[in-house]
Structure formats: structure tokens, C-alpha cells
């Protein structure tokens, strides 16, 4: 059989295996394990969509927390029953039409994605007037603006109190379903002519312009797609942790995402996935540093905050000594895996 068919069969097989593993965890896994797996899937979605702008287009975008926040709040406001909203908004009453709207989960997360996309469209005009450092600061600024708005616009977001008691709609099927869909969609985008144009813009924008590529259109496309998936992921996150507030989506969130895609390999979707998996699992594993380590003969006291120190050091070590990260710009491919296995058999 030819390569195309083989790839399709192998991909379908992998998805079936994934479904099987998820089913096993869903049935027999502990709550803790399920929580980590959900986290993993959500971060995979976030990392892959963030990598689209930072890795493929080469623009340092520091405001994904804005899209995540918008997605989370939009979905939360839609799924909460009107009666609950009445109870929750004690400082200032919620504005119409949110008081009466009550939507099913699928609609809510799509609405979250769309809301984030609309916001991305609105800010894309100032953002893409500049490049490089300025783009970084402008996107960072918008991230902060959204956070300040969430804190201050109490009639919409309930201000610092946030929204709590959300229905825990997010389960393994939702989170991993979205993750797989995101990976497929973004990979298809990257392998299309749009993706090639984005890579051209990353390498040399002036040359790309000379070849007839309009940077704004392609950067806008990447920005909107990234915003959509970030918004959806934000909605999923909200219904996983069931409480959201403005302090959840600060620049620290962006920093974590940035570390994930840098360590995984800037420009590689597989790298983003690997980075997200490592982060979700490693983040939990590293909690051990913050509590007491009992080696039997000596007790090392836990140091709160050490986790972030290790993350920061890791990011800096990777960017200084191993700039390409784990995957560099390569992607995982079945060719590579089969070749490795064949070589292993022979030798």
C-alpha cells in the first residue's frame, strides 16, 4: 500500500488506541489521574494553537491569556442557570441578555471560541501594525487590559469575586476530543499553502512580500485560528476547575505556555504536544519539591515557590543552550518511527 493509505490507517489506529486508553481511565482511573489527563488535553490544545502564532508565524505573541479569559468567561456566563447568576452577582447585577441566556455545553464552548476570535479580530489591527519587540509588548498589554477589564467590569464578570459553582461538564471525552480536533485542524492548516506562507513570513517578511504574500492576511488568519482554539480551551478549563476569577489568567499563564512551546520546540506541533504533556505531568510531579521530602534518614523541608523557580531555570537553560527545544522544527512522522523500528530490528 502506498504512503498515504498507510498514514491514514496508522492515524486511525492511534486514535482508536487513544479512545481505548481514555475509556480505561474513565472507568477505572482515580480522580487525580483523570484530572491530570484533562489538564494535559487542555494544555495540548492551548500549546498547539499558541505555537501557530509564535512558532509557525514567528511573532512573539504574549497575550494568549486574554483569549483564554474571554473564552472561559463567555462559556461560564452561558452555561450557568439564570437563578444561579442572580445569586452570584451580589455587587452589581448582571447585564441583560446574560441574565436570561442558558445554553448547552457545546454551544457555550463554541461561543467562547467565537468571542475570543472576535476580540482577536478587533485587536489585530493595532497588533499587526508593529513587529518584533513592539508586538510582544502590545499583545502583553492587551492581555493585561482584558484582565483589568474582568476585574473592574463587575456587571459582566462579577469582578474579583469571579464565577463559581460551574457545572463540571468537562470530561475526558470533551477535552481529548477538542485536543485531537485542534491538532488535526492546525496541522492541516500548516501543511496548506497558508501554512507555507506563514513560514515564509517567519523567515523573511520582506522576501515574502516580494513573492506576493500579504503578511497581514496570513498573520490575521493565524491569530484568529489561534484565538478560537484558545477560547475553546479556556471554556473547557473553566468547566474543569469550576471556578474562574481574574487572578487565574495572568501573565504567569502566558509564561507557562511560552515555556511549553519553547521547551517542546518552537515551530513544531509535535513539540508543543510533548511540551504540554511534560508540563501537565511534570507540574504535578514537581509538587513534591514544594512539600517535605522524606528520605528516611533526612527530611528536606519543602520550599514553596520552588516549582516556578525550576520552570524559569528550565526555560532559560533551554533557550540558552538548546534553543531548538526537544523537537526543533521537526514533526513526528510515521516514516521516522517505522525507519527507527526497522533499524532496531536489523541491528
Amino acid at each position: 500500500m502506498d504512503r498515504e493509505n498507510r498514514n491514514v490507517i496508522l492515524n486511525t489506529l492511534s486514535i482508536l488506541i487513544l479512545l481505548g486508553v481514555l475509556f480505561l481511565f474513565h472507568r477505572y482511573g482515580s480522580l487525580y489521574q483523570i484530572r491530570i489527563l484533562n489538564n494535559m488535553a487542555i494544555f495540548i490544545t492551548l500549546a498547539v494553537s499558541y505555537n501557530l502564532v509564535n512558532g509557525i508565524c514567528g511573532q512573539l505573541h504574549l497575550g494568549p491569556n486574554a483569549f483564554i479569559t474571554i473564552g472561559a468567561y463567555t462559556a461560564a456566563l452561558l452555561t450557568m442557570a439564570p437563578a444561579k447568576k442572580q445569586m452570584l452577582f451580589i455587587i452589581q447585577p448582571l447585564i441583560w441578555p446574560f441574565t436570561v441566556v442558558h445554553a448547552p455545553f457545546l454551544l457555550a464552548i463554541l461561543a467562547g471560541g467565537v468571542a475570543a476570535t472576535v476580540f482577536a479580530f478587533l485587536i489585530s489591527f493595532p497588533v499587526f501594525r508593529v513587529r518584533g519587540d513592539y508586538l510582544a509588548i502590545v499583545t502583553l498589554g492587551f492581555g493585561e487590559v482584558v484582565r483589568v477589564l474582568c476585574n473592574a467590569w463587575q456587571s459582566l464578570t462579577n469582578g474579583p469575586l469571579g464565577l463559581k459553582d460551574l457545572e463540571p461538564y468537562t470530561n475526558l471525552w470533551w477535552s481529548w476530543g477538542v485536543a485531537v480536533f485542534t491538532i488535526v485542524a492546525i496541522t492541516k492548516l500548516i501543511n496548506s499553502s497558508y501554512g507555507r506562507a506563514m513560514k515564509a513570513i517567519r523567515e523573511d517578511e520582506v522576501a515574502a512580500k516580494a513573492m506576493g504574500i500579504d503578511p497581514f492576511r496570513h498573520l490575521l488568519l493565524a491569530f484568529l485560528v489561534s484565538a478560537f482554539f484558545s477560547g475553546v480551551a479556556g471554556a473547557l478549563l473553566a468547566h474543569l476547575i469550576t471556578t474562574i476569577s481574574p487572578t487565574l489568567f495572568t501573565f504567569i499563564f502566558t509564561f507557562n505556555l511560552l515555556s511549553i512551546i519553547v521547551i517542546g520546540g518552537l515551530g513544531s506541533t509535535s513539540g508543543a504536544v510533548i511540551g504540554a504533556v511534560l508540563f501537565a505531568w511534570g507540574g504535578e510531579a514537581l509538587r513534591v519539591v514544594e512539600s517535605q521530602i522524606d528520605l528516611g534518614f533526612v527530611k528536606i523541608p519543602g520550599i514553596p515557590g520552588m516549582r516556578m523557580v525550576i520552570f524559569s531555570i528550565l526555560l532559560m537553560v533551554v533557550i540558552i543552550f538548546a534553543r531548538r527545544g526537544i523537537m526543533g522544527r521537526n514533526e513526528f512522522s510515521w516514516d521516522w518511527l517505522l525507519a527507527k523500528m526497522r533499524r532496531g530490528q536489523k541491528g
Partner: protein
Amino acid sequence: MTGTILLQQIINGISLGSLYGLVAIGYTMVYGILRLINFAHGDLLMFAAYAAIFGSAIFGLPWYLSFPLAIIITGILGILLDRAAYKPLREAPRISLLISAIGASFLLENLAVVFIGGVPKGFDRPAVFDHVIEFMGLRIQVLTVYTPLVTIVLLLGLLYIVYRTKVGKAMRAASKDFETTRLMGINLDRIIAITFLLGSSLAAAGGIMWAMKYPQVNPFMGVIPGLKAFIAAVLGGIGNIVGAVVGGFLLGLGEIIIVALVPELAQYRDAVAFVILIVVLLFRPTGIMGEPIIDKT
């Protein structure tokens, strides 16, 4: 609003603006030479405040010893920061430098959390700064008057160094053309180290005065002033030292006056600064005192 209140707010704005300007100078100097936004600059501010606290609390030094000591130590930290985080990436693409800067910033903040704790500490304001001046019906803290004065003195000192000494000439050359400066036999690493020393010391001075104005010190206190100082630097024209101070004054004044005129915006204060940044980048990206860049494409 009466005239006296307006005058009071203007004085507050100038004072706040001079703090921003002082920190902005360091940003603009580093950017001028390295084309790098030093995200960790705001955290140097935080470090200086803590160093001053420890100087007086642990070593019992009077303020006129612990403050200069804190400034010197922060200057040295700035040099170390460059050596560790930026020097290895001299030949790397710009995005790597930016990421390293972000990483360094987070590292400094979280090291402070680990070693000092996240609980805010109080800053002992020396008694000499505690007076209040009564003037034309206004009550002004003496610190509010000292701050712009200190800023202007330091600015003049820096301008002297940059425009009247050989080292300054080398710094100006490096900001104009990095590669050629090397060819002229100038030790670029030394010049960069001196730039960081000067910029970080100014940020340290800003940090100590900030801590005297807002006496609560915590590991993340440098984030917002750092960002606003960057906005001030962009406002004035990034790379331009006088522009940084001018931008600082404008930003400080603008922030205070807008909130004074529209009190409902008080919660949105930080957002106002970012909106100013976005407007400036849209309409005059090179800032007030920068030269317009001609887009050759």
C-alpha cells in the same frame, strides 16, 4: 475641581512620572545598544528595595549608607544578569533574547518568593523624608518634591557621562552600529556591562524611591512599574535618554490627570497606560523624540 486640587494632582503626576522616567532610562539605554527589551529591569527595582530593607534591618545601616549600597549591589546584579542571560545569546535571533529576558524576570521574582517569602514587607521610610510642606493651601509630602529633583540630577549626571566622556562616546557608537564599533577596537562587552551598570543603578534609585512612596514591598512589585517604564520609554522614543524621562513625565501626568478628571476610571489605571502605548504605537511608533523610520518596502 478647584485650582488647588488640580495643582496638587499635577505635582503628583510629575512626581510619579519622574519615577517612571528614572526606570525608563535603563530600559532605553539597554534597548539602544542591544535592541533588547530587558523584561527583568522592573525586577531590579524590586531587588534594590529589598536590599535597602536588609541593609537597615540586618546590618543596621543608616539610610544614607544602605541606600547607596543597595544601588551599587543592584548595579552589579544588572551586570551579572547580562552575563548570564543575554551575553550567550548575542548572535541568536531576537526572539530568543526576549524569551530569555522573560525567563530571567520570572526567575528573579520567584527567587525572591522562595528566599524572602511572598508576604509583603514594610519599608522604613527615613524620618527626614516624612515632612509635609504646606504651600498655597496644598499639603505636599516632601518626598513628592525630592523625587523629580533626584531624577533630574541623575539624568544630568548620566547625560554628562554619555555625551562628555570616552565611555559615553563608545556607548553612543554601539547604539548606532554594533558591528562597526567592534572594528574600531572597542571592547563591546565592557561597554555593555557599563550600560547595564548605569541602567540598573538608576532603576535601583527608582526602586528605593518607589518603596518610600508606596511602603509595601513584595516580590512582584516591579512588574507594573517595569511595564509602565517601558511604555514611558516608547512614548519618548526608545533609545533616547532624554526622551525616556520626558515620556515618563507625560505618562505619569497623563495617568494622574485622567483618573482625576474621570474618577470612575480609577480601577482601570493600568489599562489606561496600555491604551496610551497602543495609541502611540499606532500613530507614532518612534515616539515623541525619535526620528521617523522610513519603511523601505
